[in-house]
């Protein structure tokens, strides 16, 4: 019985398949290259300062607690700041992320929306001062918000190299119409090591990650009534 045979030999099929795959891959690679080039040529790129600031922000989002040292009216002042969750507050049943700042005997709780002095209860504090205090104390959430707002607005970020106690660091200077912030960061890890708010005319606050002994401090123990609404994050 006669059998119909393909006019194309096996080697012909192979050559056809290789040619097809090569053409397809070539066309796809050409288009990917064109798409990349189109983006690279037309869209502006962020500045080096903005990229370093974004890395610093990434670092801050992973930080839970920080200790800071600053000179206030010529006297050294140390603070500890930890991430906490606050709620329920007043009629609001929700829990919100907050910073708990402890300076000596004073405790300050700061959320995105309000600041509270923590005594035996929480008392709301008005004005910009609590927010400035938490930023200067290097509270990760407060700094994160401040740096994030500058980046949201694409504020210019100047970068220069400085030497802090003989170690090379990067200084980031954020400027916007009515506000500014200076941060000194470690160029390897992008962790903030010092902070200053130029318009407030304060000195630099020097920051370091909190050690277990900092977090075991008796001043971090809140009164029982407050422990119900202010909880340290795991």
């Amino acid at each position: 019985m006669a059998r119909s045979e393909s006019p194309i030999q096996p080697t012909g099929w192979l050559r056809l398949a290789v040619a097809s795959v090569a053409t397809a891959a070539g066309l796809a690679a050409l288009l990917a290259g064109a798409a990349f080039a189109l983006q690279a040529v037309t869209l502006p790129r962020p500045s080096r300062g903005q990229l370093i600031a974004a890395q610093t922000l990434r670092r801050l989002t992973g930080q839970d607690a920080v200790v800071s040292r600053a000179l206030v009216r010529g006297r050294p002042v140390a603070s500890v700041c930890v991430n906490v969750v606050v709620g329920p507050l007043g009629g609001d049943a929700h829990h919100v992320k907050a910073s708990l700042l402890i300076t000596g005997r004073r405790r300050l709780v700061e959320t995105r929306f309000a600041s509270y002095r923590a005594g035996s209860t929480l008392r709301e504090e008005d004005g910009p001062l609590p927010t400035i205090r938490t930023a200067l104390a290097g509270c990760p959430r407060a700094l994160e918000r401040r740096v994030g707002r500058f980046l949201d607005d694409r504020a210019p970020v100047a970068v220069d190299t400085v030497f802090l106690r003989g170690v090379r660091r990067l200084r980031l200077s954020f400027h916007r119409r009515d506000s500014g912030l200076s941060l000194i960061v470690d160029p390897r890890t992008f962790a903030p090591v010092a902070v200053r708010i130029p318009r407030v005319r304060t000195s630099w606050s020097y920051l370091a990650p909190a050690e277990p002994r900092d977090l075991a401090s008796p001043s971090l123990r809140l009164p029982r009534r407050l422990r119900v609404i202010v909880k340290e994050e795991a």
Partner: protein
Amino acid sequence: MNAWLRERRAILTAAVGSRVLVLAAAAAGHRLHWPGGPVPVHGASTTHTLSILSYWDGVWYRTVAEQGYLLIPGRQSDPAFFPLFPIVLRALRGLGFSFLTTGILVANGAFVIGILAFYELSRRLLPADVARASALIAAFFPMSFVFSMTYPEGLVLAALTLALVFALDGRWTLSAVAGAAAALGRPEALFFALPLAAVAVSRSRVSGRRANGRAIGAAFAPLASVAAFPLYLGWALHNVSAWSGAQQAWGRSFELGGVVDAFHQLFEPGQTPWLWRDAAFCLIYLALIAAARRVGISWPWLVAAAALVLLPLASGTFMSDARFGVLALPAYWGVGALTRRRIVRLPVLVLSAALLVAGTMTIPLANP
């Protein structure tokens, strides 16, 4: 040319007429200060007569066009938005219009081209009366107001439908370019690699050797184009995963249990009631995609459209599914199949137009 236009006059009139309706509704909303309330997104323009068409994601596309991308860890940031629309806005800066005006002109112009191309596509796959009904309803579809916003959907509709028309005509290089452009506008265009591949396979017997390779290339073009975006972000931001990082901050991380979470979210206290609009449209799209099977639309098209509607639910929410679904082309064929008869089509068109106006005027209330 005149004969070509005459034959498509009704489609062109519907496309332009529906855009006039949307622009008039947006202008009326601005003039009447209805609905009131605060501007939903920080940085959105409020002075332009058509301001509401630039709300929500429009602000982010403008930021990318003006300043490029920047991933801001822990916050909602712009690498979540694909680059085609900002690239076009930036390229047309020289015309002297604001980004808002340019965005509206581009989006609406592209939509008109998209509807004409969709009609051409439908004619190649369906009987003439269904093709015509599908294109008419697509022009007035209730969620089609998003094609008039400063969003990339209009551009993507045009590029995607042209890619598919070119593929059906065997013009593979043009199809590849248009498919790549569509995928650079919205990643959902990737799903249509499936029907493109199906067309390529079915045509392979009649194509020559070189055309065969180009056909496969055209099917892979959207994938190649989508891949170019993270590569660009890797080069510009030193972060190849910036897109997925930004998506997470927008609550768009995909999980296996996401679909269940999406249903739970509907019933959570304090959720926006507009989520129900998205859920309702999700069901409508799925029903219409199923109806498209009645007119012989093949499985690759239906699977692509269903994936486009269903996959976003894996991120745990129905939010914006009504908008994502406007690119599920077989859904329009489904509605075309159901409204072949004029007596059915007319009331559906009137209802769609009314919902289109309502949808436009309520843009400030709900993220589409």
